[in-house]
């Protein structure tokens, strides 16, 4: 594996403007999924642009998490094809961050060893594991005592460890399933900032499921709005606000307009039944 730790993407990014023209990273074709009698996805197509942060938002039970779980291989799809630059899932490296950090981290390992664990699975020698973990921590500039066990940390710190564990394999794509919804508001705000920084530092394609519209828009280069099931792309709205976004971004007219637009599409989809 080449040691280009993290792509130098942040300089070249101008979100949204040329996103559509860029070669897609993930191509989803003809995706279908049924649970019992309910058709959640039916012949679903989507292109996810490279190096962008995509928020997935939609009505309750429309299959937001199901979508990333199918892309990440946690749930096998009934039909359809998902390719990453033409390759299958087992040919790429990816990361997944669970909503429930408490149950996703290993409480018997210190935070540092939790982060390094995926490298152990990849049979990376211990010395190199150590070095790569230290390099990642330093690169992200996250100040945490990594000698602690997860249960000695706050929820936000645990989720940061989870995110770092997902990033240690230098993933091409990172999936986050409502990563902040188990945190209190203060911690959520802090974590949004942290995730944005990690995204800007790493340039990794990220797909984030969110149930908070403000969060979805704030973090995203594009908001993927899904309809009720069987899910269609109701809209794939670009968010043009410059990064790094701050609290001030939340009240900028452009941001407010985008958010209002997303809300309108959302409401339309909720009412349609």
């Amino acid at each position, binding site marked *: 594996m080449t040691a280009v730790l993290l792509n130098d993407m942040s300089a070249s990014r101008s979100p949204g403007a040329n996103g559509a023209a860029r070669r897609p990273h993930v191509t989803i074709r003809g995706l279908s999924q049924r649970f019992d009698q309910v058709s959640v996805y039916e012949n679903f197509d989507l292109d996810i642009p490279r190096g962008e942060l995509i928020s997935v938002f939609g009505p309750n039970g429309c299959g937001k998490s199901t979508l990333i779980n199918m892309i990440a291989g946690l749930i096998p799809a009934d039909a359809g094809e998902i390719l990453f630059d033409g390759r299958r899932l087992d040919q790429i490296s990816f990361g997944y961050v669970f909503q429930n950090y408490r149950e996703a981290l290993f409480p018997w390992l210190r935070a540092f060893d939790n982060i390094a664990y995926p490298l152990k*699975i990849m049979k990376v020698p211990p010395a190199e594991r150590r070095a790569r973990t230290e390099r990642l921590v330093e690169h992200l500039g996250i100040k945490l005592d990594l000698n602690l066990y997860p*249960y000695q940390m706050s929820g936000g710190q645990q989720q940061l460890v989870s995110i770092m564990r997902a990033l240690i394999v230098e993933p091409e794509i990172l999936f986050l399933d409502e990563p902040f919804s188990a945190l209190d508001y203060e911690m959520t705000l802090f974590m949004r900032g942290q995730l944005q920084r990690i995204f800007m530092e790493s340039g990794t394609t990220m797909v984030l499921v969110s149930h908070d519209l403000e969060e979805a828009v704030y973090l995203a280069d594009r908001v993927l709005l899904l309809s009720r099931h069987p899910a269609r792309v109701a809209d794939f709205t670009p968010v043009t606000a410059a990064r790094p976004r701050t609290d001030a971004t939340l009240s900028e007219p452009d941001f407010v307009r985008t958010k209002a637009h997303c809300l309108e599409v959302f409401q339309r989809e909720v009412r349609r039944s």
Partner: protein
Amino acid sequence: MKAGKLDGFLPVIGIAGLAALWWLTAWNKWVDPVLLPSPEQTFGALWKGMDDGALGFDFVKTVYRTAVSTAIAAVIAIPLGIVLGSSEKVYRSLEFVIDFFRSTPASAMFPLFLVLFGVGDETKIAVAAFGAMLVILFNVAYGVINARKTRLLAAKVMGASRLRVLFDVMLLESLPQTFVGLRNGVSLALVIIIVAEMFIGSQDGLGHSVFDAQQLFDMPRMYAAIFAAGALGYGLNLLFIVIERRFVHWSGK
């Protein structure tokens, strides 16, 4: 919660209360002194028994039998429990059998084991190991089955093989429940050993000591042996709690 200054002394209150009640009862002869000797007599007998070695020897014998039977039980039950718990099909097909024998009083197995192993130490140890094994087995399997699904999924999503998930995740996930099994197992083993020492041709052990003293109507010595057995049971439980705190630091967190 704020710990008051006297909180450390709270456990002493129960002990002191019981001792006072006992002493009063003995002093006022509310109960026939032959049946209930005074605390001094009892603890005198306990001290003497431990000091001159008779009770001490029985104590060591019981510790030895309990330890050996628990060790045998653990060595068999822990790997078996992991195999059992990691496959729902295997577990479901054996669940009834395990549950049935777990519910069978181990003391009902004495005659059978006497036929199989004779009247020596082997029988006592075998019955105790049998009883403890089923308790440990059940708990280990239960711990593996109830491994957090998210944690298993997390390992799987990182590309861990089935074997790696088993050793790196399931095994550790089941440890807290394994310790519950070990604690219950050692308690049951002690119960069975004591009973076996009383009734199946034993020349030593705490059970024998209690029974022997009762036959000779030497009540202080009988109470002393009962206390020694109680202390042993409490001590074994404490030992496992200390080991668990040390090695399963995440338990209950």
